Structure formats: C-alpha cells, structure tokens
C-alpha cells in the first residue's frame, strides 16, 4: 500500500519559503508526475516526501500513519536519483542487495529477490560488474533494481532520465511505465519534461514557485488548463497565446489555441511563413506578421510545403479556443 498525504506541508530555507503550505493526496498505485520549470520546488517536494529534507511545517502521512518525523530509512520508500547514485565500490549484485542487507534479510531471500530483479531488468549478465563498467541505461536499470527489490510502499524518481541520450530516454520511459503496470505500486516522478509527464502520468501536478498550479490527468490538463501558466507549459509545441483585439472579440484578456487546432487553408487569419520544421509525420510552421502575436505556431499533419516568405491563411478551430481573464485564470 502506498497512499501518501501531504497536509499543509511547507518548506523554508532560512527566510526563503520554497514551498508555501500545500495539500496533496497521492492515491495507492497511482503514477503521479511533478512537473514544472527549474526551481519550481518539485525536487524539494519529492525530497520532503522521501525524508531527505525536513519539513518546516505541516504533516506527511504514508498509508495514514504519520511519517513527518521518520528518517528516510523508516519510511518504506525507494528512490531513484538523477545521478543514479550507485555505490561505485560494489558490484551490481551488491548494489541491488544493499537495501535487503540493511533490512537484515536472509541470504536465500536476498538471492531470490536480486536474481528476480536482475531478470526483470535484463541485468543478469552484469551482476558481477561494477557501475563504472556499465552504460548509462544499464546504470539506470541498476538504480531501479535497487529500488524494486525492497518492494517499497512507493517509488520516488528524481529526474531519472535526464542524463540519458534521447533515444535511450524514450526506451527507459516505456520501461518505467511497464514496470508501473506490472508492480501497480505508487510512483512519484519528478521531471521538467512535459512530454515525460504527459506520456507516463496517471495524474500530473504542475508546480510553479512551490505552488500547485493544477492537478489532473494529462488530458484534463491538455484540454482544460486552469490558467495561463499551465496552458503554456503543457503541450508541445506550446499553445499560441493571443492578447489584444482578437482576444477582446472572444470576451477574454488572452485567448489560447494549440498549434494542432489551427489548420492551414481558408480562414480568418493570415501571415507570412518564417521557419518550417518538417518532421515527416507533421510539419510545424512558425508564422509571422499575423497581427495577433509575434509568432503563431501551426501544426499541419503530414508533409506540407510552404516556403519562407509565403503568405498563408489560417483557420483556428473555434471550439478548441481557450479563454483567460485578466487574472490569468481560465474563463469557463
């Protein structure tokens, strides 16, 4: 079981409040992603849950039991670090066995669990190597192996894929998602990459300056961002935000439209093509001189040819328009 409740949890470093009092409930078995720009407090929040930082106020409960004053070792959580944090002087086997050794488990049980984890993570051939002899992806798998052998109440991931190259990252992303399917254990995952958040999460927590901006499923956040910040942060390429007369026409301070909700062809908007990015599956146009915003990004499915300097007409899907008031909040 791994239900984690944060009740008015707060963190200050000296006089600086990095996390103002905050409430959050993470249900058992959920895959929750904390996402936000650098310095938004997402890693700090994870470390508070882990017990690696002390809270300045509020209470943390794990499965209903108070955990605020428990040391990390007693919380029953496992963590995977961005730097992998493997023990360089131990073999892979010893690395994975370490938490079991600390728990005082029998030799037989240790061997059984480590062999099983190694099999699941394709590490069987590497058990006698040292971390220094492994590739980045293998090291990350050892770190995950060390976390799963304990059968913890929840897994905490602190930007675990940031040090991997792009191709490996996609692969590991899938592996972690599959692991979650199989283990059905609570996972809390910190990332600044909204694509990771969108693809992996059951529930995304968007943070800015220690505040929770919105909590919801990936598609909730995509469809109904609560404010301008979430609207701009979730989605790739980012949502086009338009102020001025056009927004006024829709009785809003700002309107937002995602690049995929604008089609090229006949439409009310017009502009000049700047840079176009051809991905094969899609084509992105960065359109200037629309009189709406400096650049309007448009996503056209498939291969569409327009040269820089071409004038094109754009048709926004009006039912996909997001409206925001002067306070930055969504207008229903």
């Amino acid at each position, binding site marked *: 079981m791994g239900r984690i409740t944060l009740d008015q949890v707060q963190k200050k470093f000296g006089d600086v409040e990095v996390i103002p009092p905050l409430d959050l409930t993470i249900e058992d078995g959920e895959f929750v992603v904390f996402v936000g720009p650098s310095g938004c407090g997402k890693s700090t929040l994870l470390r508070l849950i*882990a*017990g*690696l930082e002390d809270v300045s106020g509020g209470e943390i409960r794990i499965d209903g039991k108070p955990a605020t004053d428990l*040391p*990390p*070792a007693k919380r029953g*959580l*496992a*963590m995977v*670090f*961005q*730097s992998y*944090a*493997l*023990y*360089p*002087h131990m073999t892979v086997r010893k690395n994975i066995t*370490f*938490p079991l050794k*600390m*728990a005082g488990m029998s030799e037989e049980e240790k061997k059984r669990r480590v062999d099983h984890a190694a099999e699941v993570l394709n590490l069987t051939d590497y058990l006698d190597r040292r971390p220094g002899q492994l590739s980045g992806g293998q090291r990350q798998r050892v770190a995950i192996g*060390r976390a799963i052998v*304990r059968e913890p109440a929840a897994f*905490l991931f602190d930007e675990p894929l940031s040090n991997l190259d792009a191709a490996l990252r996609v692969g590991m992303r899938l592996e972690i998602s599959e692991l979650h399917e199989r283990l059905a254990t609570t996972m809390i995952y910190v990332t600044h990459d909204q694509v990771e958040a969108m693809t992996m999460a059951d529930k995304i927590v968007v943070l800015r300056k220690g505040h929770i901006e919105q909590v919801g499923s990936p598609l909730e956040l995509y469809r109904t961002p609560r404010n301008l910040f979430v609207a701009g942060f979730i989605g790739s390429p980012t949502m086009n935000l338009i102020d001025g007369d056009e927004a006024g026409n829709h009785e809003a301070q700002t309107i937002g439209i995602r690049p995929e909700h604008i089609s090229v062809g006949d439409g009310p908007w017009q502009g000049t093509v700047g840079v176009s990015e051809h991905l094969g599956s899609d084509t992105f146009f960065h359109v200037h001189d629309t009189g709406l915003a400096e650049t309007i990004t448009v996503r056209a499915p498939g291969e569409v040819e327009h040269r820089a300097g071409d004038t094109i007409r754009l048709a926004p899907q009006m039912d996909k328009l997001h409206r925001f008031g002067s306070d930055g909040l969504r207008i229903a």
Partner: protein
Amino acid sequence: MARAVTTKTKAINTAIAWTIAILIFFPILWTILTSFKTEGTAIADPPVFLFFDWTLDNYATVQERSNYFRHFMNSVVISVGSTVIGLIIAIPAAWAMAFVPGRQTKNVLMWMLSTKMLPPVGVLVPLYLIFRDWGLLDTRIGLIIVLTLINLPIIVWMLYTYFREIPNDILEAARMDGATLRSEVIYVLLPMAVPGIASTLLLNIILAWNEAFWTLNLTAANAAPLTAFIASYSSPEGLFYAKLSAASTMAIAPILIMGWFSQKQLVRGLTFGAVK
C-alpha cells in the same frame, strides 16, 4: 590538441627535474654517507664524498650506548597511536563538516587551521605544567595526546577535502535504502574514501614520527622516541657527526622504507580530486 614536446625540451626538463631531486635528496644522502665515516673523515676539509674507509663502527657504538629498539617502539606506538585516535575523532567531524555543514563550518575549519600557525613554544610552559601535575611527563600516552591534538586539524582538513568529493546523492541513496547513520558510514562512506583515509593515515604517521619539538620537551628516558635518540648525539661535550648521522639514518630508515612502499598511495591520496 596535445602540445608537441620536442626532444630538446624533454631533455632540458629531465635535467632540471633531476637537479632539483638531487638537491632535495642530497642532505639525506650526505647523512647516510657520513654515518659510514670515522669522526675524523666526517669533518675532513675538503669533504670526502665516496672514497673513504667505510666503517660500521658508528652503528656499533650507537647501539652500545643507547637502546635503539626501545626508542623505535616508542616512535611506533606514539605515531600510530596518535594517528589512529586522530582518525577516530576526525572521521565523524569531517563527515559532519562535509555533509551537514552549518553556518559556522567554514569558520571552524579556518580556526582549526589557525591553531597550526601558533608557535608551539607559546604553549610549552602551560602544557608542561599540566603534564607535570597530571603525571603525563615522559609517558607514551602523554605524547599520544599531544600529537593527536596538534595533528588533528590536518587530519580533519584532509578528510574533509576527500569527503567533499563524494557525491551527497550516494549517501542519500544509502539512507533511502534503509541504512542507519552507522551503516552509511561503514558500508558506503569509508570504502569510497579509502584512498583519502589511507594517505591521511600515512602522512600523519610521518608527521608524528618526525615531530621533534614536543617529543624532545616532554620526554626524558622512558617515552623518548627516535627524535630524542638522535638529539642525544648532539651534546654540549662536542659534536659527533658520524655517530649523529648513524643515529639519524637508523631513525629515518623505517619511515623512509614505509614511504617508499606507499608512495603510490600517498601521491594518489594527495592529488585526490585534482584530476577527475
């Protein structure tokens, strides 16, 4: 791109390196040579370098006049004892300073180092009186206490520098894996800091072995280490260069041999973290 090193610059650099090395080593070499001369040849003018009648008389005399083995054992007990006790105190201290630094940590470190700038003679009298009142004069335990204290700042500083090189993440990972503070230090921190701890240990044994001020002033006969043994050959009745050299050679030989065998470890430890 690597800079091209010409044969000429290589030759010049080699020559310079050898010259400096010989200059540094020469006094030791001269001491060793002198220990094999007679007292007469030892003070001959012009000095004789290699061509003299080699003799072992000085060693025999020195052995007759004093108990080398007792001084040697005193040196071993005092230098190893003070280093081991120093490490036991310094490891937790350096751990705290490296991994949970407070606002005053930097100041404490500087203060510790500043005690090394104090001339020892400034505290000789009070320390002597304390030792006299507590019955610590001319005891091994007394010297162990003094040498532990005077070398402690260096031990803490060295360990602090090595510990700082160890990523905090790894210690936090151990904590997450259920390690208590004790297991964290024993299974994770210490094995990773072995090169640093080993060089700290070696350096401090050398420092304690060669320490002369306190060992000469606080001992007489019972606890006198090899430094006092050497000093006993420079007496007011006259200098006996050859015998003094023989005593010196016997005193430095053990530490020189230890240093020779552990030089790889020492260099590795002293440059730890300098090159990643």
